[in-house]
């Protein structure tokens, strides 16, 4: 009896403990679990007999099958227009599948290519992709099956793991005699696929001895890859006719090897990560069915050491951080949890990112500018920004630029003629050169020798056909940010040159030809406009916001710092010679720690807003007025509406995040589900009860949406129509999968090729990023899915990302890092934004009023809300109100509304900001597809989903059993002693 009671006691104790823990953990994640189980957390009750059309955002599809197929086709189209032909010696490509279609594909990526990226944006339930074999065979090629089989069989031994690139060496590949013997039969071409991939969980390795790439460099070749290329080179001309390299990497592999005669490489194609069906396009590009028309969205360096950014990539500890370590909250040794307080990176290059450095330095060296120093462009740059080959050739003519003073716009026209023998598309790039003047030198304004200000892409032109491309450039693009002078945008006096060019280097050469009479370029492609100095026109309402992010301007900076920025006024004297040393001061430490709490917030007698006033309004009433016009966010009507909410309701709404917004029954606000990841939706269509797939019970609900090539490839299309189509397709996927928001307009800059998340971002160039993203946003939001531009701002590396201090200057912040965000909001209309984990100077991005309020709302006019990046595990609850007051409206986590209890009295200023944040969330929701199906007569009621009901029941039952068994155990224990 005693042993039975013991066993019962133990078993039921375990059961109760497990059930109780499960209850509390799942209670924090009801939304996500319910979505995964297809169980609703609310239901809609129609209390009106009136029939209304409540499909405010309509789909163009009647079933998922069609939608998925169109998405797969779009993924292929993006690759078709975005893949960049880097090298094509002796017209090696295209290969005619009928006469040279027997090919051998080398590299473990032949069986394990990079389809997407890693981390939170990785496809978790991907559709079956078009693999290499399928892609090439569908293009008409016959693949060496023995070689393919070798890689398939040994895949696990050769795939990249951790720090290692791995892959099979030449001796590994040729160790199997049957494989070696097969080469002759498939010798029309050897195609080598080189793969590199990372993601949110880390940067690519640079100078890391654990990495097997040359010099510990993940973007260099490793010995196995080199031996493979050498082995193939030895067989070239005897066994293999041609050697073709596919760079299957969103990040730019060092391209020096493509020029190495030892490897005898004939052709190279950059394909990024290929998405669900990009491999079909790759096969067709090789066969000539598709003529490549992609142009590089990033510079391909010979070696990344030539990129001045690399001197300051990664992290550095403040030189005297140990003196202050006791003042910072203790963090664990677990890197996931660690908020960084003493690490920083300095963007010492200022605006000279990517081609802005290479072309400007080249321009200054060639034009013999004093202090230009020693720089060999051809040694540093393999392929410039904007570069890309075609199977045909194009002639540019009839270039003109007209200025319309009334609209302050420049209209650039150029006619493109296909002078080759096959049809093809051409990208026309418009570059601007601003004058670099004494005023600039005096006020530390930097100017790039060439910067992209517009582009256009032709239709597929048949041989001999022509098309005029027209590009409009806004006059504001001529101004530069003058942080140290007038503290706003300034139009300098001097000559402003426009050119139409095929890439950034050609543009620079055109400018050299125009300015110095050199025979480097075509002066017929240059137009010049003289301007007077103008400090007024473009500075209206804009002032320095980020002095605190510039270590040369930050008021509490140490005088021991050795920081400076690169300047074209003295290249040789200002180039980085290692990471910059910055010292902490006590005031800096105070500024950092102050953000961990709310002690700085003043309490007092500020009036509280009105609460719980019955106005009889539902959220749907805020969608449009009686005439059907949208109600603007600054309408007084919103005040009346907001007066209805209670303090608690507001607190709950602004603490319910984690890829969603919360339900508010009283005003008929539905909960929303937001997606995370820029290259396509990563969850299955049927996972949300809000989606059409679930509502219609579509037979393909268990499938996942298509995923797309890395965004660098989308940028390389230089095609805004494709960008808009991509956005619209994401919007359709969102409608069918039940998402009302998309944490996925990734707009951080490709400052370096080593950022693990580069596949989620567009380009090194802010204009290209912003212009493509603006169209994606427009397409996406046309389907009622709110765009979240992310991660604003200064988030160009993964290492020590949480709390990392980023030091740059305001010109670079505005012209490079914030410009894509501005364009996506101002031109694309992006509703929402997600902040970065990093700091601007010492200020956490979600705690930066300058960023979240002054810039996003004040300058850009963003109407929706700002969400932090993942809150839990990074930020402290005590930081929530600090972020709220800065303008970050919602944490990306579910937090307790109790955090706001202490502000219910004596903090009218906090209450007002809470109300503002809630209104922004409600405004974004009411203008989203979340309102589909909701009419004036709809009431939304919270329900406990069946899984949670079952869990509660189980917990109660196990609790009773636990009590009974404990009682029994005690009684038998007493009995044993008594008798």
């Amino acid at each position, binding site marked *: 009896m005693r*042993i039975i009671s*013991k*066993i019962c*006691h*133990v078993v039921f*104790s*375990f059961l109760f*403990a*497990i059930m*109780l*823990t499960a209850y*509390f*953990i799942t209670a924090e994640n009801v939304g996500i679990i319910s979505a995964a189980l297809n169980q609703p957390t609310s239901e809609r009750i129609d209390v009106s007999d009136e029939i209304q059309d409540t499909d405010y955002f309509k789909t163009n599809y009647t079933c998922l099958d069609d939608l998925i197929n169109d998405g797969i086709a779009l993924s292929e189209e993006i690759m078709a227009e975005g893949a960049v032909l880097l090298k094509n010696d002796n017209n090696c490509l295209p290969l005619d599948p009928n006469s040279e279609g027997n090919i051998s594909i080398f590299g473990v990526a032949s069986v394990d290519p990079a389809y997407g990226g*890693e*981390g*939170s944006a*990785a496809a*978790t339930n991907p559709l079956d992709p078009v693999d290499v074999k399928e892609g090439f065979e569908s293009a008409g090629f016959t693949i060496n099956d023995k070689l393919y089989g070798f890689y398939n069989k040994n895949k696990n031994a050769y795939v990249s793991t*951790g720090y290692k690139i791995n892959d099979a060496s030449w001796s590994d590949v040729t160790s199997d005699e049957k494989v070696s013997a097969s080469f002759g039969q498939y010798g029309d071409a050897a195609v080598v696929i080189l793969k590199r991939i990372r*993601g*949110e*969980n880390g940067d690519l390795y640079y100078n890391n001895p654990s990495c097997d790439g040359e010099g510990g460099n993940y973007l260099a070749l490793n010995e196995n890859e080199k031996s493979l290329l050498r082995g193939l080179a030895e067989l070239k001309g005897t066994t293999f006719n041609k050697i073709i390299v596919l760079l299957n990497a969103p990040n730019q592999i060092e391209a020096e090897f493509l020029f190495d005669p030892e490897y005898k490489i004939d052709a190279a194609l950059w394909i990024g990560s290929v998405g669900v069906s990009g491999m079909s396009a790759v096969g067709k590009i090789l066969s000539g069915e598709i003529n490549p028309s992609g142009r590089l969205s990033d510079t391909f360096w010979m070696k990344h050491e030539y990129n001045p950014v690399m001197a300051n990539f990664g992290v550095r500890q403040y030189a005297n951080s140990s003196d202050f370590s006791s003042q910072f*909250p*203790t*963090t*664990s*040794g*677990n*890197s*996931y*949890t*660690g908020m960084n307080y003493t690490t920083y990176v300095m963007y010492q290059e200022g605006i000279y990112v990517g081609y802005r450095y290479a072309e400007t330095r080249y321009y200054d060296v060639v034009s013999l500018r004093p202090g230009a120093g020693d720089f060999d462009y051809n040694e540093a740059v393999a392929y410039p920004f904007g570069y890309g080959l075609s199977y045909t050739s194009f002639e540019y003519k009839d270039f003109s630029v007209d200025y319309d003073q009334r609209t302050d716009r420049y209209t650039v026209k150029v006619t493109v003629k296909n002078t080759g023998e096959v049809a093809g598309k051409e990208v026309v790039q418009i570059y601007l050169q601003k004058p670099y003047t004494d005023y600039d030198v005096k006020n530390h304004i930097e100017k790039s020798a060439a910067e992209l200000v517009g582009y256009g892409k032709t239709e597929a032109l048949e041989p001999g056909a022509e098309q005029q491309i027209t590009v409009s450039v806004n006059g504001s693009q001529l101004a530069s940010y003058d942080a140290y002078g007038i503290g706003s945008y300034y139009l300098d006096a001097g000559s402003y040159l426009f050119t139409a060019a095929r890439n950034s280097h050609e543009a620079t050469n055109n400018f050299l030809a125009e300015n110095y009479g050199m025979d480097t370029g075509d002066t017929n492609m240059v137009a010049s406009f003289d301007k007077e100095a103008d400090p007024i026109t473009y500075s209206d309402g804009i002032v320095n916001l980020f002095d605190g992010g510039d270590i040369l301007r930050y008021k509490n900076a140490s005088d021991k710092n050795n920081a400076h920025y690169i300047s074209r006024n003295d290249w040789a004297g200002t180039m980085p010679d290692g990471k910059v040393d910055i010292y902490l001061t006590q005031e800096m430490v105070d500024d950092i720690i102050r953000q961990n709490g709310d002690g700085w917030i003043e309490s007092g007698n500020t009036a509280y807003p009105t609460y719980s006033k019955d106005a009889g309004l539902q959220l749907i009433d805020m969608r449009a007025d009686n005439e059907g016009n949208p109600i603007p966010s600054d309408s007084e009507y919103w005040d009346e509406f907001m007066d209805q909410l209670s303090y608690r309701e507001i607190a709950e709404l602004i603490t319910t995040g984690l890829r969603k917004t919360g339900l508010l029954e009283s005003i008929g606000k539905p909960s929303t589900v937001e997606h995370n990841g820029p290259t396509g939706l990563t969850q299955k269509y049927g996972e949300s009860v809000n989606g059409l797939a679930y509502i219609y019970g579509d037979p393909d609900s268990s499938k996942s949406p298509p995923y797309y090539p890395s965004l660098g490839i989308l940028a390389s299309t230089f095609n805004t129509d494709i960008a808009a189509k991509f956005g619209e397709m994401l919007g359709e996927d969102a409608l069918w999968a039940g998402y009302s928001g998309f944490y996925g307009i990734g707009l951080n800059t490709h400052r370096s090729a080593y950022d693990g998340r580069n596949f989620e971002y567009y380009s090194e160039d802010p204009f290209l990023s912003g212009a493509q993203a603006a169209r994606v946003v427009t397409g996406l939001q046309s389907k009622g899915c709110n765009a979240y531009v992310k991660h604003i701002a200064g988030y160009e590396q993964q290492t020590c990302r949480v709390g990392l201090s980023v030091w740059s200057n305001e010109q670079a912040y505005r012209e490079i890092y914030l410009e894509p965000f501005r364009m996506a909001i101002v031109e694309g209309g992006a509703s929402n934004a997600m902040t970065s984990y990093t700091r601007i100077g010492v200020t956490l991005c979600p705690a930066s009023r300058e960023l979240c309020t002054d810039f996003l709302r004040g300058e850009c006019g963003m109407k929706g809300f700002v969400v932090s990046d*993942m809150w*839990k*595990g*990074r930020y402290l609850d005590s930081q929530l109100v600090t972020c709220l007051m800065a303008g970050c409206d919602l944490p990306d986590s579910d937090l307790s509304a109790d955090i706001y209890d202490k502000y219910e009295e004596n903090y009218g200023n906090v209450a007002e900001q809470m109300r503002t944040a809630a209104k922004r969330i409600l405004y974004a929701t009411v203008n989203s597809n979340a309102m589909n199906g909701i009419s004036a007569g709809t009431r939304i009621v919270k329900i406990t989903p069946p899984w949670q009901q079952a869990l509660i029941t189980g917990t109660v039952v196990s609790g009773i059993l636990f009590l009974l068994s404990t009682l029994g*155990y005690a009684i038998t*224990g*007493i009995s*044993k*002693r008594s008798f």
Partner: protein
Amino acid sequence: MFGLRSNPLSLVMPLICSALSVVTALLYREWFIGSAEFNEIAFYLMLGAGALGILAIIGLGDFAASVQFLMLLGGSMFYIYGMYYYVSIVLVGIDLQSFSTAFIACSALVGSTVALSTLNVLIKR
């Protein structure tokens, strides 16, 4: 009320259990204090369970075993509650691809204390 011990294990087991609980609690605190994964209730329950070893010495082994078991079980549940988010982050690969050594070691210790205290309850006295 629960009488004298009739089995040497009834003294040794609670003491081993107590020692292990204290070590686990202290290491848990050392490794995770200040992080979102650190749960104070778990820490105090483990520490409290350690202190219960004293009851075994004064002859309340049966009672000590039972309470120690419940405290450690509760502590482990709070430990899991504190850790689950970290575990989910690692599993989906957002930040980390593998669990930290501290997490693995601490989890093994917590599991061991619960297993030992379960045996302590079940042994015959």
